[in-house]
């Protein structure tokens, strides 16, 4: 089909889908079907090329930070900010941003891609830059094994034409370095004293991570306490305050700085970098804070054991009413084994006020074996949310939720409070 028709038809479907209030990926799926080259043709126009961000945890918030950093340096950035990180999500985002002639008004594309979908994507459209965050135990029911996921990231790195940015603290990601030939490599990492805050799945059952000798990193998170972070960028030390919460979000800021540094090179202005990082807020559902009945309500997305462990470690339950909502739809992962790789003992004093979601009873069973008190168990998310709010009116609240549970909860919350619209 001729390209202009694809654009017009795609835009029409996007418009119709939005009128219907439907999902963000549908129009993308449509153009993908009628014109498989749509993304390639559109992105080929960009003067500074394409950046791909992948890994198990932190893609969405890191992408948001990279976009902010590049925009602060004057670049026009195209991104798939919906968190719809399959190629059809990219196509859908493109449809929104191009004009009717199919022209994309941008200098560079920064794309968050799901590991599995990134592989065919980079094969068709090699990126100039890639940032590979981590390989965690996640959605093993989709990818099979962690080593298989690591191989997917390796393929993304190999397809990259200019610079690959790698996490020095993730052994599987760091190893990718040795498979590359010709690409520039930049590393980001943690100081030795912060390593213990980031136990990997491998360290989890064998004590905390031990600092071993590692190659030098371009960007290092040196210190972090409260809302204050110190970075080492190319040998120089810089500090800033942050709006990000959660240690993992802060580590991802080091990743974002490393990537921005790789793209901008000598044009990097460190004051601009710091003032930008200082204002970035977490992506939706990643520690996002809403107000309900005059009390804060935080949503923390949990997708895998390492993310859940870091979430529990990042946010103190003291004074808070806690709800946990676990679904097992395809996007959440169907296997419940992961809940058994998270320790919930930090919730022992406060207990869990509400357990919800399709797999509420699996979650409750998990809590039973950590001997943690449970207020209510209710599978239906709408009913559970109401019960949670009504029985904990005078307290700040926090909800740990899987991806599809979060979508439902946000929809319900938007009926009673202001929730940022994700288009």
């Amino acid at each position: 089909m001729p390209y202009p028709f694809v654009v017009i038809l795609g835009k029409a479907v996007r418009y119709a889908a939005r009128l219907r209030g439907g999902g963000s990926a549908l129009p993308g799926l449509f153009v993908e079907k009628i014109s498989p080259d749509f993304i390639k043709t559109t992105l080929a126009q960009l003067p500074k090329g394409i950046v791909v961000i992948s890994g198990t945890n932190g893609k969405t918030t890191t992408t948001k930070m990279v976009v902010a950093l590049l925009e602060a340096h004057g670049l026009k950035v195209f991104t798939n900010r919906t968190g719809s990180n399959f190629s059809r999500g990219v196509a859908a985002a493109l449809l929104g941003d191009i004009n009717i002639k199919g022209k994309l008004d941008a200098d560079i594309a920064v794309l968050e891609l799901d590991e599995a979908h990134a592989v065919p994507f980079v094969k068709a459209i090699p990126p100039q830059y890639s940032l590979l965050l981590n390989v965690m135990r996640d959605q093993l029911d989709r990818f099979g094994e962690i080593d298989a996921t690591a191989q997917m990231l390796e393929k993304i790195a190999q397809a990259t034409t200019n610079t690959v940015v790698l996490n020095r603290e993730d052994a599987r990601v760091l190893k990718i370095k040795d498979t590359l030939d010709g690409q520039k490599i930049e590393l980001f990492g943690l100081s030795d004293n912060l390593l213990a805050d980031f136990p990997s799945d491998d360290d989890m059952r064998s004590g905390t991570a031990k600092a071993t000798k590692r190659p030098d990193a371009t960007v290092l998170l040196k210190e972090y306490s409260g809302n204050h972070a110190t970075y080492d960028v190319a040998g120089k030390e810089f500090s800033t305050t942050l709006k990000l919460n959660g240690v993992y979000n802060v580590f991802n800021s080091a990743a974002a700085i490393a990537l921005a540094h790789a793209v901008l090179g000598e044009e990097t202005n460190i004051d601009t970098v710091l003032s930008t990082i200082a204002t970035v807020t977490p992506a939706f559902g990643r520690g996002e804070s809403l107000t309900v009945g005059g009390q804060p309500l935080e949503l923390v997305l949990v997708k895998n054991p390492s993310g859940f462990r870091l979430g529990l470690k990042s946010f103190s339950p003291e004074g808070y009413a806690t709800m946990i909502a676990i679904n097992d739809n395809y996007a959440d992962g169907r296997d419940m084994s992961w809940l058994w790789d998270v320790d919930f003992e930090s919730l022992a004093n406060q207990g869990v006020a509400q357990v919800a979601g399709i797999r509420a009873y699996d979650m409750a069973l998990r809590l039973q074996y950590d001997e943690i008190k449970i207020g209510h168990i209710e599978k239906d998310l709408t009913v559970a949310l109401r019960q949670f709010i009504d029985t904990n009116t005078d307290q700040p609240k926090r909800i740990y939720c899987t991806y599809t549970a979060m979508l439902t909860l946000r929809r319900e919350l938007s009926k009673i409070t202001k929730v940022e619209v994700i288009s």
Partner: protein
Amino acid sequence: MSKQPITVVQLYPKDMNIYGDHGNLLVIQRRLEWYGYEPVVIHYNVGDAFPEHADIVIGGGGQDSGQEIIHADLLKIAPKLKTLAEAGVPMLMVCGLYQLFGNFFKTSKSTTLEGIGILDVETLATRERLIGNIVTSSEEFGEIIGYENHSGQTFLGENATPLASVIKGAGNNAKDAHEGARYKNVIGTYLHGSILPKNPRLADFLIHTAVTKKYGEFSTDIIDDLLADLARDVAQDRPR
């Protein structure tokens, strides 16, 4: 009176722990406590001295790379595990260690990993991955509910009996309806999820066998398994 100890040995938690195998250990630990015994947990990893005494032995799944790491060590401790198995010590081996408790495992690289032969089964790596919710049925344990995720397909020899037959899902392989294997009190299975939390009868089989073997009688305490029952009801009806 001080509580009676029961020693639980977990094989290779460092390299073989991929599908919530910690959950199985936690369930045995807690239920022993709830029944009034004192669980003594020993984490056995590559190169450790094998414990003098074991009342229950459990082991989990790993990646192909994990299996290769532990393989030589497992062969080294095989005589000790065999003696325990012959003596009726209850064991639960899930996925990767189930395969290596068999006669051999032919990996995807076409090398053959020799197993320790406690279970008369053999496993072949395939390109097909058997993934999803699974429900099986056993005369002794009722319905066993869990999740499977394996590309190795296992076939039973003459001296192994299946643990259960598959109602929904694949089980040992894509050909017959067998799931898992049993020899004396040794159980091999592909089910995780983790398997023991949602299958308390299986957990209690391991515990009851170990305790009566050691102390001749068993606690009269009763554990409330309502949450497990409710979680089973939901899991049973979830899509594959």
